């Protein structure tokens, strides 16, 4: 019976710590993103990094294709589309790093020649307020041409957009 106060105090302390941690998480976690019915994809920017034109276009087109394929949005609008109005989230993508590997080196050595693209994704609403920011990476290590890295990025970005903003779960 002597141990009862000690156990009670320990439990209270433990409860307090847990409550504090939960409150801390609640303060730091970003607010849940607003669900929207449409997304607009802007052309990939690469001011800091010299990115070949075919990679820039491939990133953009693959991103649109993957957003349409994975579903979740009623409309996927392109950069400059006049009909992109109303309930829409805008995806700005900026290339932060690019390493063009070699398909031949990959096929011959298996371990060398990796192509990698680092992209900063920023989701904003129509007013330009940022609602989500995330860094994503696209790479090709073994099979496929260098442009396959853009498909890898596009799949990740489309999943991120669907999970955070899509009204309905896609395929």
């Amino acid at each position, binding site marked *: 019976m002597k141990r009862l106060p000690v156990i009670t105090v320990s439990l209270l302390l433990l409860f307090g710590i847990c409550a504090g941690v939960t409150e801390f998480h609640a303060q730091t976690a970003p607010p849940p993103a607003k669900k929207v019915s449409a997304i607009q994809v802007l052309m990939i920017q690469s001011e800091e990094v010299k990115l070949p034109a075919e990679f820039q276009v491939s990133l953009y087109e693959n991103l649109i294709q993957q957003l349409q394929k994975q579903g979740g949005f009623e409309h996927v*609008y*392109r950069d*400059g589309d006049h*009909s992109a109005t109303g309930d829409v989230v805008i995806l700005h993508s900026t290339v932060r790093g690019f390493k*063009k590997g070699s398909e*031949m080196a990959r096929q011959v050595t298996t371990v060398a020649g990796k192509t990698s693209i680092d992209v900063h994704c920023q989701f904003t609403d129509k007013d330009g307020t940022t609602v989500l920011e995330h860094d994503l990476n696209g790479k090709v290590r073994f099979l496929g041409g260098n*442009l396959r890295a853009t498909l890898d990025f596009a799949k990740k970005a489309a999943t991120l957009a669907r999970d955070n903003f899509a009204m309905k779960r896609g395929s």
Partner: protein
Amino acid sequence: MRVPLKKVTIRFLFLLFSPLTLPSFAQQPADAVPVVQVIGFADVRPNAKGNLKLENGNLQFSSSKAKTGVAIGSLDDVITGNDSQRVFRGTFGTLTMLAPYGGGRFLSLFRAKLDTLTIRYRDAGGGLHGAIFTMAAGKADPFKKLLVAQGARTSIPVQDDSNSAAPKPDAPKEQKP
């Protein structure tokens, strides 16, 4: 029998300038350029083989399964580049990867050069599109010149070798990795 000096001079001049005239004939692009549409055109599956040609102010891509095109005036940017690809590709190329004693890896060393043509254009609603084509080496630059001559815009000016003495120092160059 004496050959007149005038005839000899004319023949000599023909011979002298023949290296300059032959490449200009060789640069004349054919009506349709065989290409692979890597990505971009709607209703065309990725990596579809077909022909690219200029027809009635349109850039037309036609394959066995699809035919589509865009107005040349709507092209915002035309950029050429170059790349390489495995000579043995497709199903046969995949099977060669299973060859014993690193035979597949050895065959990967045999590569063919190719040109890339990247375009950006706007649809009727203002939406930005992009498309990438690959074609045989040496075909992209003449095709780009034709496109620009018919009204396409480009962020990298076409270098006209015939009447430019030296390239401008500030002008951006095409991508030649």
